[in-house]
């Protein structure tokens, strides 16, 4: 709170207390699942390497993150936007998402069916021809929507 005020008034940058908190979060995330940061990075690369064998993934927007509610509830959350092969510049046609929880259960996109269903229902425009002049705008809007929904991670 105080540091927020400080920042608002441009007096100080982020205090070392906040840095400590962020570093602790990071360290404990790895401690708690006994997977050191370097190994986690390796794992992410391997996961991605497998996925790209089958799908064209928009690497720029790939996000594979550890999330943690508390010391006994961790999950791996992956967002892997897929590029539509026929038009590499277009927005992704679908997204693969997978969640692996620390209790061993692996949720795949199936469990996220609701979310995906909602997503695609919200984009009927995808298959219909879009008036040329509107393409740029529509695509942008869609893209935003998609970003918005992908940011709405399921409650951890």
């Amino acid at each position: 709170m105080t540091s927020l005020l400080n920042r608002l008034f441009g007096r100080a940058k982020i205090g070392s207390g906040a840095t400590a908190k962020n570093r602790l979060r990071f360290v404990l995330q790895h401690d708690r699942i006994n997977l050191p940061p370097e190994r986690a990075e390796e794992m992410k690369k391997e996961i991605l390497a497998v996925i790209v064998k089958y799908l064209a993934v928009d690497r720029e927007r790939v996000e594979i993150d550890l999330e943690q509610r508390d010391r006994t509830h961790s999950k791996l959350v992956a967002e892997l936007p897929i590029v539509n092969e026929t038009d590499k510049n277009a927005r992704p046609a679908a997204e693969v998402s997978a969640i692996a929880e620390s209790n061993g259960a692996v949720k795949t996109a199936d469990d996220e069916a609701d979310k995906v269903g909602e997503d695609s229902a919200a984009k009927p425009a995808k298959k219909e021809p879009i008036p040329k002049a509107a393409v740029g705008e529509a695509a942008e809007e869609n893209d935003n929507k998609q970003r918005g929904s992908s940011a709405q991670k399921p409650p951890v």
Partner: protein
Amino acid sequence: MAGKVVTISSGKGGVGKTTATANLGISLASLGKRVVVIDADIGLRNLDVIMGLENRIVYDLVDIVEGRSKLRQSMIKHKKFEDLFLIPAAQTRDKMAVSPDDMVKLTDELRDDFDYVLIDSPAGIERGFRNALEPADEVVIVTNPEVSAVRDADRITGLIEAADKGPGRLIINRLKPDLVKKGEMLSSDDVYDILGLSIIGIIPEDELVLSASNSGIPVTLNTNSKAGMAFNNVARRLTGEDVPFMNLNGHRSFLQRVISLLEGR
């Protein structure tokens, strides 16, 4: 009612376990409770000097466990409190001289005659910590608002839960309110967010703690000491009383109390 065994632990060394044990012992005794404090840090005896009882020691924990002395004759009575006793650690032995089972047997004997048995755990997660943990009904975890201390507190929290002794409650020791205010120290809220343990005490950094250990008179006996007052509050919370948190900066007393209430503490 049978007495309660409370183990004071931390993972990291030097965060204030012995200081906390001595002060809680004194506070509980001044509340009229019958108390034994056990120094389980074998080879690094300390609780005796912090409590000013070092010149009265005849027998120690290992003597009791190995049957060389009777429990009653080995306990050292505090100068000021009739019902406060110390069982000192052995200084020349190592932690392997005592087993977790020994500690259970010993504390079971004490439970009948005392309200509280406080165990000062050694740092680390090995045998000494296991000895201190095994007989515990409740664990108090001491930490400092500092990255490495909080990390180690999280580590032992996991071990405590795995041993079915959890969840522990947390003492945040050596908090500097002015640094928290400047954003240069983790606040008690921060520590709570990260560890998710309920907080039983927030003890400010206090120079009088050093004078107290110099003189062997724990700081709770000094009415001018904020740390002493904070330790007194911890003792009262241990007995189940709902004591508001002192007005230090950088904590959320109201919310914490609500949380404690919800958890039925």
